[in-house]
């Protein structure tokens, strides 16, 4: 490459597309069509860079100039800056929210510089719709090595030795699962990639599929060779249309190049991959339910005692089921070796973890960090902490199966085991940061509402237990909680955990139990003081502070129940009429409307 040459990368992840990446790409295409430019500038669509919040993103390589929130009107200026001498367009550079300085290079942005992107190595760098790009970054080299240099036993040894644990949530050792499937008797076996990603608040599987689909396919083919399967399936949510499209393109291209199909790379090994679109049911992420769903049935987990899917899986045959990210790690382990993989992470959780960092943090997006990193490093180091000077309250991990961790645990190194010990879970890797404006009882109610609706209904503890817990939580957030409710929630929660049939039920109470454990006083305030400190629930006594009131009358204007009265130049709220809709609280320009606790004796009246 002469130094006139450069590549312009345009992110085409779902986030950037929704921000308008498509028109940016086409106007770049138009501008670059001029002769001198055409020879020197390469334009490339890529998958997700992870920093969705700053999208649409445009990156100029080889320097790595990082332009954020690009608009079609900026395209001309970007193209002008490329030739004859490459300059940086300062105005479009990312501005660090903490130091308020503009940062020219991708690698220097704190959001990226603190990460270790290995599974996400290609995401945002290659064109996911062109297999040549994947091949150019060592793609399918691991498959070649596996087929021609290693026996299936050696591959399984390597995976076992690496310490890789399933990244779908439970963290089951991958090598052990592969060995069990390989040992299971039978000629016909299947490999399934779990891309159901039902956790609301997680999008890492989607980003990997959208940004680097071949790495997942390569991992699956190697798995097929290792366990002795000829057919693979990707079970992907139909709600992810872009991921589905790119999977179809990727499998077709892989078939064309002989990485899939009969006689792969001339080795005699036969393997193909079919794409199955999940029709939208959280419980179908569970292995036995997922298998039934592919068979065309209702996805209800099999009852206990159930055989392992590795022995009796799809159509009764031994089946290997792993998560998207688990498969995406495999080519790396084969190429760089298990020692390299095991060199990162903690004693019992090796490698990296991918989290979707969302909620009340300055920098949201997809991140990849070593296992065992401290929560503080994620929330503050990468995420930049809560924006607008708000106080940090908690981190929710693991989605509906996980729990909330308070500020005291910010220095806890996080991996599979430490999260479980703290009453949460790794789950699918959602990390949602909440600040003082979030009510923990409402968060618990929100998750219970989700699991209660998604419960398949076949076992009683889950079906009725989650329903009863939800009823109690709704009562508490409406201000009708009664003494004993917290203990009732704990009692039911423990039983739902213990007696439910599948992982949905056994983890469903986690959001409630963990918030009771760490934020009990918020529950107590809701029940005994009819007060919500985050001002999310319609609770509390509304009062106008006369010394601060500027008599603008806006509160009176928005009040739908006529509770705001004015007498002799003084505004006040008639409690009997107030329905606690918070309109006055929100509209007051000087913050003179106060929401206060009731005293317990006022409540019982």
């Amino acid at each position, binding site marked *: 490459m002469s130094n006139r040459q450069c590549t312009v990368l345009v992110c085409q992840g*779902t*986030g950037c*597309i*929704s*921000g308008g990446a498509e028109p940016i790409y086409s106007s770049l295409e138009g501008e670059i069509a001029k002769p001198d430019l055409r020879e020197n500038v390469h334009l490339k669509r890529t998958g997700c860079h992870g*920093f*969705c*919040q700053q999208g649409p993103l445009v990156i100029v390589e080889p320097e790595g100039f990082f332009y954020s929130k690009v608009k079609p009107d900026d395209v001309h200026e970007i193209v002008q800056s490329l030739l004859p001498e490459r300059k940086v367009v300062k105005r479009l550079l990312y501005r660090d929210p903490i130091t308020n300085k503009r940062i020219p290079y991708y690698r220097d942005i704190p959001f990226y510089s603190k990460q270790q992107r290995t599974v996400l190595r290609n995401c945002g760098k290659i064109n996911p719709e062109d297999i040549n790009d994947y091949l150019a970054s060592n793609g399918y080299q691991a498959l070649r090595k596996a087929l021609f240099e290693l026996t299936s036993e050696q591959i399984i040894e390597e995976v076992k030795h690496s310490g890789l644990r399933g990244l779908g949530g439970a963290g089951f050792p991958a090598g052990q699962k592969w060995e069990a499937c390989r040992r299971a008797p039978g000629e016909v076996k299947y490999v399934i990639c779990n891309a159901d*990603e*039902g*956790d*609301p*608040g*997680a*999008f890492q599987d*989607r980003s990997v599929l959208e940004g680097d689909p071949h790495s997942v396919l390569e991992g699956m083919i190697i798995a097929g060779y290792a366990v002795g399967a000829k057919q693979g399936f990707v079970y992907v949510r*139909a*709600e*992810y*249309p872009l991921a589905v499209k790119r999977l179809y393109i990727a499998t077709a291209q892989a078939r064309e190049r002989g990485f899939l199909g009969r006689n792969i790379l001339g080795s005699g090994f036969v393997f193909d991959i079919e794409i*199955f*679109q999940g*029709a*939208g*049911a*959280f419980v179908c992420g569970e292995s036995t339910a997922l298998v039934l*769903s*592919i*068979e*065309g*049935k*209702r*996805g209800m987990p099999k009852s206990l005692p159930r055989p392992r899917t590795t022995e009796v899986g799809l*159509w009764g045959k031994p089946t290997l089921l792993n998560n998207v990210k688990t498969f995406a790690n495999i080519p790396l382990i084969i190429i760089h070796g298990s020692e390299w993989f095991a060199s990162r992470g903690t004693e019992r959780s090796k490698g990296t973890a991918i989290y*979707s960092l*969302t*909620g*009340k943090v300055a920098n*949201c*997006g*997809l991140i990849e960090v070593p296992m065992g990193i401290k929560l503080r490093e994620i929330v503050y180091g990468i995420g930049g902490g809560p924006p607008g000077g708000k106080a940090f309250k908690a981190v*929710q991990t693991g*989605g509906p199966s996980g729990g909330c961790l308070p500020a005291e645990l910010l220095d806890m190194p996080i991996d599979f085991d430490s999260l479980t010990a703290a009453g949460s879970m790794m789950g699918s890797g*959602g990390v*949602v940061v*909440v600040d003082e404006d*979030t009510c923990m009882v409402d*968060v618990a109610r*929100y*998750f219970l509402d*989700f699991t209660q609706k*998604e419960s*398949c209904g076949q076992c009683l503890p889950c079906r009725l237990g989650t329903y009863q817990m939800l009823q109690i939580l709704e009562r508490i957030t409406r201000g009708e909680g009664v003494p004993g409710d917290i203990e009732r929630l704990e009692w039911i929660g423990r039983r739902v955990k213990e007696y439910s049939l599948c992982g949905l039920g056994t983890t469903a109470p986690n959001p409630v139990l963990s918030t009771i454990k760490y934020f009990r006083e918020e529950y107590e305030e809701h029940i005994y003081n009819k007060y919500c400190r985050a001002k999310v629930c319609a609770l509390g006594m509304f009062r106008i502070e006369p010394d601060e009131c500027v008599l603008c009358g806006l509160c009176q204007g928005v009040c739908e129940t006529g509770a705001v009265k004015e007498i002799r130049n003084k505004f006040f709220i008639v409690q009997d009429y107030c329905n606690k809709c918070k309109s006055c609280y929100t509209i007051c320009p000087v913050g003179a409307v106060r929401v206060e606790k009731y005293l317990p004796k006022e409540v019982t009246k």
Partner: protein
Amino acid sequence: MEDHLSEILPSYRGKRSKLIPILQEVQAKFGYLPEEVMRELATFIGIPECEAYSVATFYAQFRLMPLGKKRVAICRGTACHISGAPKILEATEKVLGIKDGETTADLEYTLETVACIGCCALAPCLRINEDVHGRLTPAKASELFPAPSTNKGEQDVQ
């Protein structure tokens, strides 16, 4: 209607295991799962009609009633919830004159809530057909739709 169905079915060769892909394709063609079609496809793959319905009603994707031309999906993922998704839903319900799960009488809009559309970094967000709109406020959400008035009649879906 039979014409469409005869295009879809043969490629599946009467396989029970293909029920979900068939339902997905039927819904892609018709926008929902019409009663006659359900009857016919059950016969075709040789299962009782009730079994076809048991699957169709288990999964959130399938609809037994016609949907509006524009499907509005309000994301209720965690990140969206804590960033104010309930207010977005409220505003959208107001401007469209329908509630969650309903379709306008002129079959123009269907409003639904979904677990997560995976754009958490842009919370709160909603999707109209394939287009995602992020970083919403109730006011911005209302501006995505024509002013209320015509959309009065209500119709329940599922």
